[in-house]
């Protein structure tokens, strides 16, 4: 047993002895800072590598760097197949997002506002495609299309992406609806607005940021999707499928160039979605 006296003595001494001070920082904080910096570096090293080598003249990605060039960008943007694939990807992503919104918003509303048999089952089912490996969604839909005799094409890819990514819209919009103060809808009805008008003028503007944010995320994910596309695409290639087929054959800095562009665009999309979803951008400043 330790007496009170002993405990007090130890308390007085312990902090000084346990932590060496290094210029105002104790060792644990310093270690932690270094570790955090290393992890961040680890996360960004490959991305930076990709970007740097997209400007490096040497066709083999190795150090030391040789000379600065835009050659790989010119080559990438002169590549017909690549451009077609890019076009396909943009079409797929846009159509998939449209599906996500048309299906996702009503689903979220139904989950938020109504009680119906199978509601819990639906909630589980809807998020399956983002919890299960993408491959399972891919092969199950492949089987489905094969059995129903549907030809694989960009359309099947779009349906596949629509199915896999609607969950993003559902979960985001549902979360926003749950936080949503239903009394402002009552206030609108009280002030004479019929239900549809209330939905357009009151409900929609207040869940808008969740809708835009999740659309951007869904777009980015669709643009980058492989596991589902891999099984559902016909003769047409999307950009990731094209890149996939190229890098399996060998490496070319052309991929670095197109990768850098994709990263740039993705980051812009992501940052805007974060910005919109956090609502920090939505008219916080008082208007004059």
């Amino acid at each position, binding site marked *: 047993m330790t007496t009170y006296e002993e405990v007090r003595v130890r308390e007085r001494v312990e902090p000084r002895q346990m932590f060496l001070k290094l210029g105002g920082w104790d060792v644990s904080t310093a270690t932690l800072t270094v570790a955090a910096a290393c992890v961040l570096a680890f996360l960004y090293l490959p991305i930076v590598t990709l970007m740097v080598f997209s400007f490096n003249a040497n066709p083999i990605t190795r150090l030391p760097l040789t000379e600065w060039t835009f050659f790989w960008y010119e080559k990438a943007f002169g590549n017909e197949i690549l451009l077609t694939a890019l076009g396909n990807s943009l079409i797929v992503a846009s159509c998939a997002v449209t599906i996500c919104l048309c299906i996702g918003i009503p689903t979220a509303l139904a989950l938020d506002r109504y009680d119906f048999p199978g509601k819990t089952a639906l909630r589980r089912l809807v998020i399956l495609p983002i919890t299960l490996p993408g491959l399972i969604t891919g092969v199950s839909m492949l089987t489905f299309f094969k059995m129903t005799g549907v030809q694989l094409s960009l359309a099947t890819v779009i349906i596949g992406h629509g199915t896999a990514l609607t969950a993003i819209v559902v979960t985001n919009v549902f979360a926003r609806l749950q936080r949503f*103060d239903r*009394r*402002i809808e*009552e*206030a*609108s*009805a*009280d*002030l*004479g*607005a*019929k239900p549809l*008008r209330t939905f357009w*003028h*009151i409900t929609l*503007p*207040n869940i808008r940021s969740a809708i835009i944010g999740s659309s951007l995320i869904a777009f980015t994910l669709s643009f980058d999707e492989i596991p589902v596309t891999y099984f559902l695409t016909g003769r047409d290639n999307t950009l990731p499928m094209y890149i996939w087929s190229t890098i399996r054959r060998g490496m070319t800095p052309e991929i670095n160039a197109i990768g850098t562009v994709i990263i740039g665009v993705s980051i812009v999309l992501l940052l805007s979605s974060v910005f919109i979803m956090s609502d920090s951008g*939505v*008219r*916080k400043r*008082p*208007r*004059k």
Partner: protein
Amino acid sequence: MVNIVEIHNLTKTFPGVVAVDNVSLEIREGELMTMLGPSGCGKTTTLRMIGGFEFPDTGRVILEGEDVTRLPPYKRRVNMMFQDFALFPHLTVEKNIAYGMRVAGMAKAELVREVARMLEMIELPDKAKNLPSELSNGQKQRVALARALIRRPRVLLLDEPMSALDAKLRETMQVELKHLHEKLGLTFVLVTHDQTEALVMSDRVVVMDEGRIAQVGTPIELYDNPATPYVANFLGTSNMVVAKVTEVSGETIVTEYGSGTIRVAAQGKRPAVGSEVMLCIRPEKVRVLLNGQDSPESFNRLDGVIAEQFFHGASVHLALDVGAATSIVIQHQLDTAEGQAALPPAGQRVSLSIDPASITLFEEVTAYGAEDRV
């Protein structure tokens, strides 16, 4: 007087609870009526059924002679000021106010004029372009008021209008709302759990308890003649003491409390001799007799010892031990020099004088204790 709203036998159940239980009520044109009660007593549900936000299981809501029981809110000429105001967060103050008339299709020029008039009325013309998130709670409340009033409703419903305001602002707004009510001549139906608010503002008060109406009346009626111990206890502070009936003669009932007797005006009640009854004695109706002061012959006299003092600013509450289970709390005014000089110290023996007519007798004995008298 004309009844603008009548509700007949309204009942509403939610899963597991009867929120409103067979409530009937008439609201007169132009009055300020308050529904008062603790949370869960059914007052808000009743208000929401008048507004059309809930539909009753049974019963009817009549507005200006028309049955509106099943009409949705957007088809009723009543408007609501919501608890926490429910301003549209994405619309500016002027758009919030304009919303109701815009929906109604008012011409642009007239709408602008009307909104300006409303902004003038609530004294916030410089906030027209601000979003609700940039307003203080007091300002939000005024915007909510203007938003409801621009539709010129026949009845304005106010759901806990003061709950979001701090104590100081609450008092100011109570007076402002009352003035506004007088100015507009509009019917106000207010819901609150704050008894002071109800007493200060209302023409009539409906006290509700567990989905039923306990009593309806003017604030003075309710205060002086509470129908049940529940009402007596809920409105103002009171001594609720249990006494034993020793004699019933004519208009007077004599009871025994502690070592003394208390005579009470019968007011039509006839409790059996020997039964227990509950007496409601308001602290301010009890006088302390100092230095052999006299009181009318018909008044009750009780002797006791001052046990504790509780300072309340303009007055002090004294807890008196009269040799019974519960002590009696009385109010002693400190607003005059005499009053201050005459404050008896703790431990002193004093005599009390109580008018028998100021005591309310209940034949039912309930559990309402003396906890919040001080």
